[in-house]
């Protein structure tokens, strides 16, 4: 190890996942090289212990689960006629995958994480095995968290988490999103984290998790064949959030008319129906019968009717109706407002709540000049002088904190020890309050109740781990020579190992980045 200890520590917190015992000795003289190498070599942590390799297995499994639930419900209904009204919601949940949300598991329920010794296990009678969506959710969360224990640096994982929050879905939506949220990250975000933004965008907006989360499987072109027949129509939810959150940003210069036009262009972006023969049920498909005919104009550009000879380069068997939606997304991904929006969010995430304009401008230029090459943009974040001169005014998010604590103590938490603290600290896994994801500012996380619950988590972790921890070693391992005298003293003067560990985890040096 070499270099300025404070700079090293700041960089590890700002761009990485936190130090484990022995990590400081492995970091070379220039900590920048550690993170640059990750980008240049596209280092990616492998995930293991996953319930499904891909959506192609998960979607049919969810369908079978929903079918079993439905039959069980009907069996109960036959014996208890009075119970039907309570379940009537299940029948009105609309077409496609939303029908698979069983009313026996309220989607609003927070994940019942049950760590040992908290008393929750006694309160809830434990089934032999949790229902499939909850089991998959827990296994995906565990795999994601455990993968983040592995890298020395971890910039790639931080970027994955950033994009996962940028393209946020919430498992509160119901069983399909609960089952697919981890897959969205693995299938649509990870593969493109150093690829093209437009590709990530398309992968996300066509992923069943996002399609269901923002209702697009239910959106019908009012003048489409299916729309004429069923008397249903447009749902503009996904189109609006694509423009407002995923690409241009709310001040990106679009209008209500653009939202509606984009919503029309992506009608038919839906899921294979439960009993369809033309694909794996529950996976993405373009359904031309749901697609709104006619030309539609988004941001001043006209996307002509698919039936009128509109051609876009695409796979030979591509549906023209789908290709014009894809073309619209590609154009929006290239829009200067998108570059600006992404540059601003990246800078705010890694550097400062009030992002330095010079850095935002530089990242936006790299984004534009490279046609949204995220490897170049991610490298430009590291190469920005602002990222190395700004004070550590950001605060670790609850997820970053929990992960850093596990790494600092050399601990591999079980799934309950992951999910419950995240829930307590206000950042439950894949469960933000809305499609805008979790907040990314100090003001949001450094709240009175937020700090109190963070201390509760630190105390719980300390109780479980303190016996084997030497406070002096802990300070050396996680701060090196960069600990302040005050923090060093507060840790070493603690009345017990338990207190020492909790104070170290809650110290400004550990919380800030």
């Amino acid at each position, binding site marked *: 190890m070499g270099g300025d200890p404070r700079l090293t520590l700041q960089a590890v917190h700002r761009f990485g996942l936190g130090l484990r015992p022995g990590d400081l000795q492995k970091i070379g003289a220039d900590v920048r090289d550690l993170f640059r190498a990750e980008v240049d070599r596209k280092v990616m942590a492998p995930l293991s212990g996953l319930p499904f390799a891909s959506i192609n297995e998960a979607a049919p499994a969810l369908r079978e689960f929903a079918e079993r639930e439905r039959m069980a419900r009907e069996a109960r209904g036959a014996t208890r006629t009075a119970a039907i009204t309570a379940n009537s919601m299940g029948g009105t949940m609309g077409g496609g995958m939303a029908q698979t949300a069983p009313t026996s598991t309220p989607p609003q329920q927070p994940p019942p994480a049950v760590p040992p010794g908290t008393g929750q296990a006694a309160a809830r009678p434990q089934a032999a095995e949790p229902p499939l969506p909850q089991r998959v959710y827990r296994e995906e969360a565990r795999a994601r968290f455990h993968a983040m224990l592995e890298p020395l640096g971890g910039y790639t994982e931080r970027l994955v988490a950033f994009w996962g929050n940028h393209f946020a879905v919430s498992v509160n939506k119901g069983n399909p999103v609960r089952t697919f949220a981890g897959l969205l990250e693995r299938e649509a975000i990870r593969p493109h984290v150093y690829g093209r933004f437009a590709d990530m965008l398309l992968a996300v907006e066509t992923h069943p998790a996002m399609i269901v989360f923002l209702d697009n499987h239910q959106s019908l072109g009012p003048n489409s064949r299916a729309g004429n027949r069923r008397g249903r129509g447009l749902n503009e939810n996904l189109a609006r959030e694509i423009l407002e959150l995923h690409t241009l940003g709310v001040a990106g210069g679009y209008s209500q008319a653009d939202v509606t036009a984009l919503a029309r262009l992506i009608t038919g972006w839906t899921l294979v129906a439960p009993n369809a023969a033309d694909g794996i049920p529950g996976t993405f498909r373009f359904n031309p019968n749901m697609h709104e005919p006619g030309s539609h104009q988004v941001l001043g550009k006209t996307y002509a009717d698919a039936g009128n000879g509109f051609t876009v380069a695409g796979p030979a068997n591509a549906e023209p109706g789908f290709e014009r939606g894809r073309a619209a997304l590609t154009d929006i991904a290239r829009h200067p407002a998108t570059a600006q929006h992404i540059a601003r969010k990246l800078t705010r995430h890694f550097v400062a709540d009030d992002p330095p304009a010079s850095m935002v401008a530089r990242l936006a230029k790299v984004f534009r000049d490279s046609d949204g090459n995220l490897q170049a943009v991610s490298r430009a974040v590291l190469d920005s002088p602002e990222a190395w001169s700004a004070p550590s005014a950001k605060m670790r998010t609850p997820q970053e904190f929990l992960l850093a604590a596990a790494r600092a103590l050399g601990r591999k938490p079980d799934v309950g020890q992951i999910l419950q603290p995240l829930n307590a600290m206000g950042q439950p896994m894949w469960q933000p309050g809305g499609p805008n994801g979790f907040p990314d500012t100090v003001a949001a996380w450094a709240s009175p*109740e937020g700090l109190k619950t963070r201390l509760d988590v630190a105390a719980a972790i300390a109780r479980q781990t303190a016996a084997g921890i030497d406070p002096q070693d802990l300070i050396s391992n996680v701060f090196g020579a960069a600990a302040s005298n005050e923090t060093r003293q507060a840790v070493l003067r603690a009345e017990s190992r338990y207190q020492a560990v909790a104070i170290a985890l809650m110290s400004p040096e550990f919380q800030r980045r």
Partner: protein
Amino acid sequence: MSHDHHDADCETMTPSRRAVLGAAGALFAWSFVPKMAYATPGARDPRFVVVILRGAMDGLSAVPPLGDPDYRGLREGIALQKDGPDAALPLDGFFYLHPAMPNLARLYRANQATVVHAVATGYRQRSHFDGQDVLESGQDGPGMTRDGWLNRLLAGLPAGEGISRKGALGVGIVPPLVVRGNAPVVGWAPPVLPRAGDDLVMRLMDLYGQRDPVLAKAFAAGASIEKIINREGMAGQRARGGPDNAEGMRMIAEGAAKLVNADDGPRVAALAFEGWDTHANEGGATGVLAGRLRGLDSALEAFEAGLKDRWKDTVVMVVTEFGRTARVNGTVGTDHGTGTVAFLVGGAVRGGRIIADWPGLKPENLHERRDLKPTTDLRAVTKGVLTDLFGVSGPVLAEKVFPGTAGLAPIKGLVA
């Protein structure tokens, strides 16, 4: 398209153009009133709770205008009914209340609840997040999120005033923006984990005091309310559900009521309930929205029960960032709209009234031929409540709490 559903008393509440202009003149005179005018009128020790419904609550379903001839045609599949097993609850013969809200109906009949309809903030776009920022920041437009209007209200009260000294309660790990700012904020949320010990808290407070003023301030605010939490027997409780779940809403309201009821506790509070973004399968008398409304109704009952003797001095204000489309969308839900409802509930409310300059639901009467047209500015409602409840002066309201609203008169007579 005005009509006669409201009583004569309500008619004077409608902020007609003339009333707004008249009051603007009065505001000018108020700016010369000495600082004494800040003092809380009478002996009232008021309580004020802001409940934010995130996701844009459908005002046309919460308080359906069943007397409007165009309502039913717009709301195929989710329209509520005057009769039948799940009949909506009658309010004034024109407006009804969603059947999932029997407690609110009871409070309305007891003159302790007022409905403001066709109301909106000044925001006219359709982003939830900007809409919520405007609702909570009290600013003219989005992007000015340094602090919230409830916090600036406290900051605008004279120093030493009991209300401001005791701070505002912000419920949740991330407290609502409306309560954030320079004035002291105390925090609480239904806890998920056992709490850390006092000694650890003291040591950490000491460390933050030496090293990190931002964390020190937040941490001290969190610790200050522990005393009440312990006394009220809330320390051992555990969360029963989130803020988008009926059980969770009730638990949040129960806890907030205890803290706000305590003599040494905060006098004002802000909290948020979630899950109002009903794009698909919104439901009518039963269904998704009905479940949320049932949670809200239960929370209002919990406030009434928990505030006990203080209920007579309480206003609970329920607001949302905007409304939803008048017409049902293609997926038996509603998309982002504009005008909606707000509720004022509490013993201090001069209730049993609906305040609405009803714009009608014909296409030409809708905002952009799409949304319920807002005819009342929510800030005029809020300013009215703050004037009556806290005796806040017009200039403070127009310059500090809701900047740039000198031309917008507070609606008078909202508080009994």
